[in-house]
């Protein structure tokens, strides 16, 4: 049995490493992205094998799903930019003198130069082997599992990961929400969004599928959110699933990006951090410490925060997919 | 700590107006003059009060801890008062001169701002109570002078500024390193007459020797000791008041004063002789005296000649210190004052010639005595004083240096003194002779009159008054050197206190 598992592990790892290698060696960007999405899905499998279903869910939804969508839409944007530059519109600046194949370079990367091969290889080998050596010398520590286990009864939830994320190490989670928000603020500061995600959808299939998919996604998202308190799931996975639904919606409505009103949108993306912070400050005032809850209030507060966080994450991920800020935000 | 505020007040009497002047708009002409002269006057008065106090034997000290082990110490002893009074008097005069000299020229706020900073730094140097404080003001002086050197903004001025900074900052770093090292060895002591390193002479003799060389390099650049002098003649591109200040009061003197402090109050003459340090310094000083004179002989540009003369004359001070006996030190210290007064006169004269008649070269001086008699008279007094004609100031110096040489049994120094006096004569007499006896064929070219209109005197009164004043002062310090409050009398007091000698007459 264990031998079979070992063989499974080895095959899985070989697959992951092989896919990663092909992805990094690829000269065609589209191919690389597809391989990367495959890589993410294989990773999710590995996480299941490592008894981390929460992470597997997150990896599939966020690592492979959302990242994949972001990568694909980026490629689409690059293609359209290069095509526009090539068609020689009057106000385009002169093409980059560094290469006559500027269009090609947008979506292709020529094989790397020979001279960097050995230095890079040796460097990577040294780093990798040192890492492996260090790891093989480590003891079989149990980590913090017993400590978490001992405190589960006062955490307000039944699922240890949720307890860690939203109670024991709530500060990290708060900052994580903040990072998602900052990434969006950064993307918005670059300018208004373009219309690329809203290219006409190829045929009637997508809208048709959507009618089926979006309700399912919403139900799944809400379930995953609710399940988070006692089973694998939680705000991030739910947010990613809802975000994915949102992205599909954006994709399916050609030339009709919803005119997002500025103020509600801002409130929506900040709801998660704002509520989290309010609860945290209340804890500080009430003597439970910053980001602390009274034991009795832990569960409802955690759920409240999770709901707000899910909403904000979903909204932010969709906004990151659209990339630029909506015109409404400047009004 | 009593009276520490007096020291601070002396410092701020120029620092405050200086900072205020920076923020004055260019056209606030009168306010700027008021600030300038007010600051200079207050400083003069305060130094007078301090002088009286020190004469009474009062102690003045101010100290502010900057860091554990680093204190900013201001203190007033007789020696610091010598330099401080010199700066205060000459600053006042130079301020008047500079106001006249720069009348109507642009960027006067900047100029006078840095001018005041420069003097604050000089007074700070004079009043420093320990090496670290000395270094702080010494470096501040470097920085405050640079904008003055490059004030004209010509490529030549900027080149001179770069050279000046290159030399002074490098030497400043050497000095910095040496002082930190010394502090590590001996602790952050204040200046003590007779030195405070005696305990280390057994254990750290080599370190002390190396340190002395480093310190001399650090101070030698500003004091223009050979071979570290090359910046000085090139810095002549600065406006005349700046040259005057650089040569007579601030920069060069700061270097010389540093050397005096190190030999007298850090090492102490005894230790310096014991370690064989003064002998080397003596040779360098003597060489610089001769070298500077010979270079001065070769220069046709008047300011250039004066610059090389400074190189030579400042080394008299160092020569005196290096003789390391009471009489030699009297000669050196008194020359600090005498050279300052005399040299500033000469530079003012050169500035007047240049400003009034556009004359820069010695070969153009023919007959100038008839056009500008007072200035030429002042120049003559200065020149003769430098040569050392009795009873002018220079004679007093050389006389004591000679005595000091005899006392130290360094007879060859007498030869150096005689030779240099001959050389002095050889480069100062020609301009004097030309000025009085030479014939001018063509009419004078009059740039000052052309742009500022006719003047009542031979030149603008603000240019003339300082020249006359310092010339008379130069004459007076020579003539009345026997009085107690003359520079010589004061220097004798310093040496008596430092060497605990009984009252002695000359």
């Amino acid at each position, binding site marked *: 049995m264990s031998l079979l598992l070992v063989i499974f592990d080895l095959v899985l790892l070989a697959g992951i490493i092989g896919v990663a290698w092909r992805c990094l060696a690829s000269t065609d960007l589209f191919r690389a992205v597809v391989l990367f999405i495959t890589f993410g899905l294989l990773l999710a499998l590995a996480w299941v094998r490592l008894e981390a279903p929460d992470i597997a869910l997150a990896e599939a939804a966020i690592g492979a799903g959302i990242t994949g969508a972001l990568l694909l839409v980026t490629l689409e944007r690059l293609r359209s930019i290069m095509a526009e530059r090539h068609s020689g519109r009057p106000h385009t600046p002169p093409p980059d003198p560094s290469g006559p194949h500027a269009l090609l370079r947008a979506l292709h990367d020529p094989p790397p130069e020979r001279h960097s091969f050995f230095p890079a290889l040796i460097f990577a080998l040294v780093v990798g082997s*040192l890492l492996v050596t*260090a*790891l093989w*010398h*480590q*003891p079989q*520590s149990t980590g*913090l599992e017993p400590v*978490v286990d001992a*405190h589960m009864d006062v955490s307000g939830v039944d699922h240890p990961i949720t307890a860690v994320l939203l109670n*024991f190490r*709530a*500060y990290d989670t708060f*900052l994580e929400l903040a*990072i998602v*928000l*900052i990434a969006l*603020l*950064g993307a*918005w*500061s670059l*300018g208004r969004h373009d219309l690329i995600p809203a290219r006409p959808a190829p045929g009637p299939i997508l809208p048709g599928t959507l009618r089926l998919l979006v309700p399912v996604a919403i139900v799944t998202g809400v379930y995953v959110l609710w399940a988070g308190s006692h089973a694998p799931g939680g705000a991030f996975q739910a947010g990613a699933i809802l975000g994915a639904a949102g992205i599909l919606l954006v994709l399916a409505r050609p030339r009709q990006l919803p005119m997002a009103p500025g103020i509600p949108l*801002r409130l929506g*993306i*900040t709801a998660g*951090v*704002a509520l989290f*912070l309010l609860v945290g*400050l209340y*804890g*500080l005032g009430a003597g*439970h*410490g*910053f*980001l*602390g809850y009274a034991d009795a209030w832990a569960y409802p507060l955690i759920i409240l925060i999770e709901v707000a966080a899910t909403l904000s994450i979903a909204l932010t991920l969709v906004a990151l997919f659209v990339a630029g800020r909506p015109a409404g935000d400047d009004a | 700590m009593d009276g520490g505020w007096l020291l601070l007040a002396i410092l701020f009497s120029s620092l405050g107006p200086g900072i205020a002047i*920076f923020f004055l708009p260019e056209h606030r002409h009168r306010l700027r003059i008021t600030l300038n002269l007010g600051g200079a006057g207050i400083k003069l008065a305060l130094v007078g009060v301090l002088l009286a106090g020190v004469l009474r034997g009062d102690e003045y000290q101010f100290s502010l*801890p900057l*860091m*554990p082990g680093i204190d900013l110490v201001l203190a007033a002893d007789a020696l610091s008062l010598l330099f401080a009074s010199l700066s205060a008097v000459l600053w006042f005069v130079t301020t008047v001169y500079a106001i006249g000299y720069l009348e109507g020229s642009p960027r006067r706020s900047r100029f006078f701002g840095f001018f005041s900073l420069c003097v604050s730094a000089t007074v700070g140097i004079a009043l420093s109570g320990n090496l*670290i404080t000395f*270094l*702080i003001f010494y470096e*501040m002086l*470097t*920085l405050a002078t640079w904008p003055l050197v*490059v004030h004209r*903004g*010509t490529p030549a001025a*900027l080149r001179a*500024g770069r050279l000046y*900074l290159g030399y002074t*900052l490098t030497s400043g*770093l*050497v000095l*910095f390193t040496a002082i*930190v*090292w010394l*502090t590590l*060895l001996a602790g952050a002591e204040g200046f003590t007459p007779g030195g405070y390193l005696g305990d280390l002479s057994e254990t750290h003799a080599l370190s002390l020797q190396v340190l002395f060389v480093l310190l001399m390099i650090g101070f030698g650049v500003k004091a223009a000791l050979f071979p570290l002098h090359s910046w000085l003649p090139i810095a002549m591109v600065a406006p005349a008041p700046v040259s005057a200040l650089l040569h007579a009061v601030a920069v060069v003197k700061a270097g010389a004063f540093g050397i005096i402090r190190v030999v007298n109050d850090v090492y102490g003459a005894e230790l310096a002789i014991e370690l064989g340090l003064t002998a080397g310094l003596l040779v360098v000083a003597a060489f610089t005296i001769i070298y500077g004179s010979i270079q001065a002989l070769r220069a046709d540009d008047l300011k250039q000649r004066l610059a090389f003369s400074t190189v030579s004359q400042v080394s008299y001070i160092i020569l005196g210190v290096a003789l390391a006996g009471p009489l030699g030190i009297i000669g050196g210290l008194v020359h600090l004052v005498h050279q300052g007064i005399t040299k500033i006169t000469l530079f003012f004269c050169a500035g007047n010639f240049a400003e009034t008649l556009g004359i820069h070269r010695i070969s153009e001086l023919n007959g100038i005595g008839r056009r500008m008699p007072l200035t030429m008279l002042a120049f003559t007094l200065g020149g003769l004083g430098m040569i050392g004609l009795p009873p002018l100031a220079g004679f007093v110096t050389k006389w004591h240096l000679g005595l000091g040489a005899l006392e130290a049994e360094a007879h060859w120094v007498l030869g150096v003194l005689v030779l240099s006096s001959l050389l002095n004569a050889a480069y100062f007499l020609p301009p004097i002779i030309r000025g009085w006896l030479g014939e001018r064929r063509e009419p004078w070219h009059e740039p000052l009159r052309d742009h500022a209109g006719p003047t009542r005197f031979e030149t603008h009164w603000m240019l003339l008054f300082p020249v006359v004043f310092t010339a008379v002062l130069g004459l007076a310090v020579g003539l009345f050197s026997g009085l107690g409050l003359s520079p010589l009398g004061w220097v004798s007091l310093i040496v008596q206190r430092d060497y605990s000698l009984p009252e002695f007459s000359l």
Partner: protein
Amino acid sequence: MIEAPETWLPTAIAGLVGLSLAVAVVATAWPRQAHRIGLFGALAVFAWVLGLSALFVAAGPEAEAAATRVALGGWEAPLGLMLHLDGLSMTLLVLTAIVALATSLYSLGYIHDRIERRQFWPLWLWLWAGLNMLFLSGDAFNLYITLEVVSLSAVALVAFTGTAAAVSGAVRYLLINILGSLSFLMGVVLLFGEHGVLDLVLLEARSEAGPTERMAAVLMTAGLMLKAALFPLHVWLAPAHGSAPAPVSAVLSGLVVTGSFYLLLRLWMGVFAPLATPAFGILIGLLGVAALIWGSAQALRAGRLKSIVAYSTVAQFGYLLVAFPLMLVDPDAWRVVVFFAVVHALAKASVFLAAGTLQHAAGHDRLAELGGVLRARPRTVFALGLAGVSLMGLPFTGGFIAKYLLLEAGLGTILAGSVIGVLWVVAIAGGGLLAAAYVLRMVAPAFHRGPERAGEAVSPWMDWVPLGLATVAALAGFAGTLTLHTLTLTPGAP
């Protein structure tokens, strides 16, 4: 009734985190008023930090009494996250507050377009909050997160001008930052795998010179050196810092880089202390000398004002590296290093702000064509010069005191018998000359004879704030005793 300061400290620390986060969140949610929120928030955070520092110093004189750990949510380590305030973090918090307040005031004048303001302020407030949290964090993984908060907001601000140079600088900066963070995170993971805890104090107690610590040290040091642009991992710095908006450059060169450096220092004084060997110190010191020379050489040939300043950051951080071998001989020297970093941050920020004013007035910052503006704006040039003097380490400035102490430590190592100490002393002394040379390059054109061109009008904020900050940098010399005293309140440090 006045309670002992210790009892208030934990609340005040958590309150600082809460306040700076609240300011950022409110500005994000209400961008229309972001600049007003930013201004009042900046003043509030500044006041809070000053109050906190007063409480902190009052809680001394024992280091243990003043240094405080706050369990967030009431969960003590190893389960929960601890905030950690000691003399080192307190000093850097105060530094951050000063520079950030100046930058905020400056930005009021610099960012005046309505739409730009809405984008700028939330990001800037997040950056500031991130820095505050970085200095207060006492948990290895939380450090990674705060580093990310700082990097992402900093990158967004670099790209803010939207020009090709700025965006390509930002992309490079972002990739480098992600790489650095990942390297750091891998180190954290290794340490976690070995010891099963993330809290820095617990880690420090358990760490020894084993393979895990070695590899973690390599990874985390390399990652932080990347972020701090320490030689030879610095190539990204100049384009990023040089093309960002002026207030952002000031914060990047003054605070963000210092933040990474702070973390390096903290780790090497704590978790990795068993690994510090003389040979390692000498290696780092040599890197520092190389950085000093390379950065100065680049600053001497760069054609743009802000590039010169950016390269000088590389050079000045060389100093900090040179200090590492000194710390091995004289452990007390670390306080000097921090003081130097503080003074550098103040001076560097004011130089960047002054450069921004000139750039704004002239419309560019090409040194060769800047003469007219330099001549017409003596106040800004004075600020540039004053801060430059501090960078050179000349009196009266804070830089002088810092350099004095560094030199003292360097000469101390020579006297203690270390031959290579001569190199450190020469580097410390000579670096000042190189600094003088490039500062002179920036200031000298103001003294050239030529026409004056005041250029575009600048707001009073942009006119006065650089001068004010430069004055603070110069007067920092007088705060030396206080700073060094505060730094002694760091338990566990030598």
